[in-house]
């Protein structure tokens, strides 16, 4: 098996007296697509929010390539190599599609405020590269023809894809996708699966995704973690999970 990129050890968080996630151990390895599934309210998005430090974990460590990122802030976590999308889409609604992706490259291309003000060659060459790279990303998601559209007025499926493109723009090692197929029709979901695989291969990253669409999860995930009431219920390959009694019970009830 490849080297682990993400290692979560005994991760837990309490909200007041309520323990939302407890004693969670997970690993994501290089070049892997891993699914995180579970019934509504199981704490899946809470895990993502802890990974990106939107929430502070109460316990545990999060190692990214061996570096503990549990004490960093959201911005530093992204710089360390984690990017994500959101369950309730969070695009920069008033910016164009292109600018959304460009904003994702904010830390990848550096020029000073003086360069900005005096329109130096450094600014120009950086901005040209940003534009090229952004268009390249948009092309992958078939959004290049919509580049000048306001992000907020895109159809739902396109918004989800744009969020992925924006996250990729920040050059992550680990990409977190929170229900990427939500609101997509079967055909769009099919396309999305190809895109996710393509992205994994061409950017050489690993992907952790939350999804309710079992077709997608079983098709593209190499390993799956199942969360229930904030605790790990099961882990394994899609086949193992599909035939796991505990998982079936958690989803369907007794």
């Amino acid at each position, binding site marked *: 098996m490849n080297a682990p990129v993400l290692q979560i050890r005994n991760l837990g968080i309490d909200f007041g007296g309520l323990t939302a996630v407890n004693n969670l151990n997970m690993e994501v390895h290089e070049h892997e697509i891993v699914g995180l599934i579970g019934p509504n309210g199981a704490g899946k998005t809470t895990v993502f929010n802890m990974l990106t430090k*939107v929430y502070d974990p109460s316990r545990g460590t999060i190692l990214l390539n061996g570096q503990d990122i549990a004490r960093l802030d959201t911005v530093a976590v*992204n710089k360390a190599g984690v990017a994500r999308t*959101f369950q309730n889409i969070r695009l920069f609604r008033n*910016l164009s599609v292109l600018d959304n992706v460009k*904003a994702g490259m904010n830390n990848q291309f550096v*020029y000073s405020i003086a360069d*900005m003000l005096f329109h130096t060659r450094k600014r120009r060459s*950086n901005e040209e590269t940003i534009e090229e790279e952004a268009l390249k990303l948009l092309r992958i998601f078939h959004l290049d023809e919509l580049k*000048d559209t306001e992000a907020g007025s895109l159809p739902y499926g396109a918004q989800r894809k744009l969020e992925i493109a924006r996250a990729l723009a920040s050059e992550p090692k680990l990409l977190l996708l929170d229900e990427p197929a939500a609101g997509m029709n079967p055909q769009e979901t099919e396309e999305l699966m190809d895109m996710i695989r393509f992205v994994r291969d061409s950017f050489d990253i690993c992907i952790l995704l939350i999804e309710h669409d079992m077709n997608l999860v079983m098709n593209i995930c190499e390993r799956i973690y199942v969360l229930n009431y904030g605790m790990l219920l099961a882990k394994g390959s899609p086949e193992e999970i599909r035939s796991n009694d505990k998982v079936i019970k958690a989803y369907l009830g007794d």
Partner: protein
Amino acid sequence: MKKILDNLLHQKNRSRTISYAMIIGTYLIIEILMHSIRMSRLFTSMLVPCCCYIVLALSLNLVVGFSGELSLGHAGFMAVGAFTAIIVSGLCVQMIPDPIIRLFISIIAGSIVSGIAGLLVSVPVLKLSGDYLAIVTLAFGQIIKSLITNIYLGFDRNGMQFSFVNNELNLEQGRMLLSGPMGATDTAKISNFSSGVLLILATLFIIYSLIDSKYGRAIMAARDDRIAAESIGIDILRSKTLAFVTSAILAGAAGALYALNYSTLQPAKFDFNTSILALVYVVFGGLGNINGTIIAATALYVLPELLRSLQDYRMLIYAIVLIIVMQLGSSARLKRSLEQIRNRFARKGDVR
């Protein structure tokens, strides 16, 4: 040549081209008119203040429109710039006799000091957001006004003299620069229309350079969605500070130009009403809409001056219209019909 023209008219540059064309065109027309026919004093006296208010409104739009934070104390930054410029200009009269160079240096000084004030204010303020931020900036405006109202400053052969209480400084053949509530008296009037237009052009250049860059995208991203912006590595505080300080610098420059257009200037000029006035210009012009801001500031400054008889009711009318704009602006039906109109003209004219 054609390439340059295409570039200028390209959709993403169109707003900028229109801004510059509008300002330069208006300037040329007014200059030609002034040289060919006798303009009324009322008209010529409005030119420089109008430029100042355009710059002030543009600077406020950077904070309110592009950065998405409400500032109610922008007159404070204008005041800092204004009185810094008065002091610098007053001190440099002998050293730099040329009024144009002195004006230039005074404006630079005014904007630098205002920028520093902006930086100092932004440190505690930008950790807040929404209404709290508005309240603190409001307080800042009042504090600056009160502070300047109580400063007595003069200079003579022995150097500068300064007091918070004593309005009778013992000056030997010197003169007062600031005398408390009376403000500045006997300032040399060195501002002129051309310098005002130049300042607008410089302001436009700075704002367009900013919003078109990675720094501008970070500012607007932080406005649209804080959490998403952080998730892709944008430092919210730094972006908002950049917008705020740039805005303070520009407001300071506007204040400096304004101050040096009058022989007397009282600190009370930069009160809460002036801050609100600037905000009215921005709301009328459209948040984040540069050309709209220029037009709104011009129209709303010039119209009341022409309709002097309604002067007393100006703030009342502004208040009512502001309420109407905000009420209608948030109504879904109006938004939809505006959208339709916009789409219809989107191809021909400028949208943003």
